[in-house]
């Protein structure tokens, strides 16, 4: 592959190839029974070139030859954006965040379909013990990925990554009322406990036992970690370096100003062991970091990929992510972390005489 890229550099200024090979096995239960196992094996590659100072791109799955991809990428470069960066010559982890990030567990890769079926049956049984009349849909998924990256300037990296997830949707229908509860847990490691999932579902079902109507008016509201994303999403989208650059973001000139509560501290952290969005490098060879986005209510950083950072005169924050092998890198969040406060959920609830929990 490196050889091909060297050859490519005779036709274009520089080139990079990103390759993903993955296998996903989802074991699906519907209405309390095993329903489907749709195995997906995929392999795709994306070629990005810089040609006469402009960016070109093409992607392919399957057997398309390198030359034909190169030709298309060169053709699109004619209309592409001016490159404000070049591909990294050297790709390695350094600095204070040098530590090795664990994202692969062979035990996940080796997990058999039969074992996954058993886990699903166990989850349904556990929730069924609580209430036989529930409709349970459960999915147990394992996901194995191989990522490879090369560029014509000598930079390269590769890694393997695994993910294992349990998710469940429970439907309870009584008379005219329908209660739907969804929950999921996920890890890169084979360390998930099904009780973690079922106890959350059962607790939720208990909450839903008695239905009351709410009167309009002001009252305190608690957002669970699942629901809080709805509140944070506009901030996250506004901190995207691309949105800032285009001046679409309302946060453009707000860096280091006190905007929100002291209690709000947000990170994009790609260095957490076995978390979904972790990796040694982002999808264009920049080191993944723990990037402080908001600290005590003040914006600390916007997040960038190479190209956007180049135009903005900033450094990439290691947030150049691709939505699969068919797309170019764009600024994205690795793992979104909101720093914990000091009060537990039950203390919050105790504190409120009448309010709402949003899950």
């Amino acid at each position: 592959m490196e050889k091909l890229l060297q050859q490519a550099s005779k036709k274009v200024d520089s080139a990079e190839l990103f390759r993903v090979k993955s296998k996903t096995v989802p074991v699906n239960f519907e209405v309390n029974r095993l329903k489907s196992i749709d195995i997906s094996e995929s392999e795709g590659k994306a070629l990005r070139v810089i040609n006469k100072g402009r960016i070109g791109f093409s992607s392919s799955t399957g057997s398309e030859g390198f030359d034909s991809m190169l030709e298309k990428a060169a053709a699109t470069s004619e209309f592409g954006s001016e490159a404000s960066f070049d591909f990294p010559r050297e790709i390695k982890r350094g600095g204070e965040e040098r530590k090795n990030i664990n994202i692969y567990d062979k035990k996940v890769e080796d997990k058999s379909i039969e074992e996954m079926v058993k886990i699903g049956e166990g989850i349904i049984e556990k929730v069924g013990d609580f209430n036989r009349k529930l409709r349970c849909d459960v999915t147990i998924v394992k996901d194995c990925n191989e990522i490879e990256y090369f560029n014509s300037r000598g930079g390269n990296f590769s890694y393997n990554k695994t993910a294992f997830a349990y998710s469940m949707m429970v439907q309870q229908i009584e008379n005219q009322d329908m209660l739907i509860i969804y929950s999921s847990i996920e890890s890169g490691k084979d360390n998930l406990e099904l009780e973690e999932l079922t106890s959350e579902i059962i607790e939720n079902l208990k909450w839903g036992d008695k239905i009351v109507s709410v009167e309009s008016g002001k009252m305190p509201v608690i957002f669970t970690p699942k629901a809080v994303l709805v509140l944070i999403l506009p901030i996250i989208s506004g901190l995207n370096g691309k949105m800032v650059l285009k001046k679409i973001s309302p946060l453009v000139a707000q860096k280091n100003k006190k905007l929100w509560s002291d209690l709000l501290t947000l990170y994009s952290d790609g260095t957490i062991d076995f978390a979904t969005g972790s990796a040694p490098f982002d999808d264009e060879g920049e080191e993944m970091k723990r990037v402080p986005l908001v600290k005590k209510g003040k914006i600390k950083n916007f997040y960038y990929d190479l190209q956007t950072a180049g135009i903005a005169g900033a450094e990439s924050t290691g947030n150049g992510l691709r939505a699969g092998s068919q797309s170019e890198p764009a600024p994205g969040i690795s793992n979104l972390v909101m720093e914990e406060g000091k009060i537990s959920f039950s203390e919050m609830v105790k504190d409120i005489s009448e309010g709402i929990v949003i899950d």
Partner: protein
Amino acid sequence: MREILEKVLGDKKNKADYIEIRTEKKEVTTIHFQGKKLEKINCSQQTGGNVRALVKGGWGFVSFNQFDDLEEKVREAIEVASLIGKEESKLAVISPVVEIINRKLDKDFRQVSLREKKNLMENYNSIIMKSNPLIQSSNVIYTDRFSTTYFANSEGSYIEQEKPFLGARFTAIAREGDNVQLASESVGTIKGFKTMERISTKAQKAAFRAVNLLKAQPVEGGEYTVILDQTLGGVFIHEAFGHLSESDFLYEDERMSGLMKLGKKFGSPKLNVVDDGSIPDLLGSAKYDDEGVGTKKNYLIKEGILTGRLHSRETAAKMGEEPTGNARALDYRFKPIVRMTNTYIKNGDTPFKDLLSGIKKGIYAKDCYGGMTTFEMFTFSAGEGFMIRDGEIAEPVKDVVLSGNLFTTLLNIEGVGNDLKMIETGGGCGKAGQSPLPVSFGSPHLRIKKVIVGGR
């Protein structure tokens, strides 16, 4: 391709009740302008395939990009099917077909240079941007895709079908102070690049509508007699009613299948609803669906009575009905599931102006900006709205959100126009993670009483 598929199937035939292999190759071009800037231009090629096997009523499915070990994929599909299967396999009987279907295009987009496509879209984009000083930004997204599918099953069918698609979506964003309004127009077709060369009016219309919305006042919420235009009528019948006719969902939902009992009265005798994948040259059309079943005209509602529903081979057999040719897959990564094709309300006999007459205070709702349905409950946002006063179309209004119960709303249709139009957009239909699947929908103008309209 045929020999390879048939050889693999020949080896494994007796180990499953049914096996099919579907492979696909496609070339895709995408061009995206945002504001004055070319945001993205992209060419990609995809090849891939899948194996689906049925053992004792259980389906195994494996999708892939590499063809080198097809036999192993078949083995894997049979293995997982055996884990799931615990009953008797049921598939409606069809006769095997061998056919190769090529398509003739009105200007083959594969022969059009990237530059020509880019220039055309750039031109549409500048029509939007220059149409009015209040236009602040735009989005022009063009996609073309030429896909060829190869289908073979263990019953001896072999079908090759060419499936072209072209789509363009124009969005105009107008701004006056804090008032920001957005309007979209979209075109989709399987006919060829010629269609794409003739849509400058759509770009103008998007800009015109966005600017017009700046002047519109929020509608006053309440219960109104509403006239839906052909687009909104089409979206309504597809989203609110059509999805409930999909049998894969119906036969597992006792409550809904009770509500969707054949023979039940759904509307006035003027109401006829059809899904037909065999109409030539429409977005949802194909001679065969993705199980190799021929498409045809299926009445869902005839003269106000619920008369049919949409099937795959499996749902048809399980419900003891005829297959309808509605098993469709987005691409090789997905199993075929029951989907609509071209869904429409047939023409009635009332001219548009007669639909208007007698409405003292009502709403004319046009286009669709989005919406959602949960079982029989629906909510749609109109893209454009006008008050109707004393039988005449009056001032524009915005934030027109229609909601209600499908069954009562169908019964409340009191006028069916005579101006059916099929709508083909660059978007598509979504179900079970398979989106956007090309479909078309349509309707004549519809007059519906007692519609709940929420405003701001």
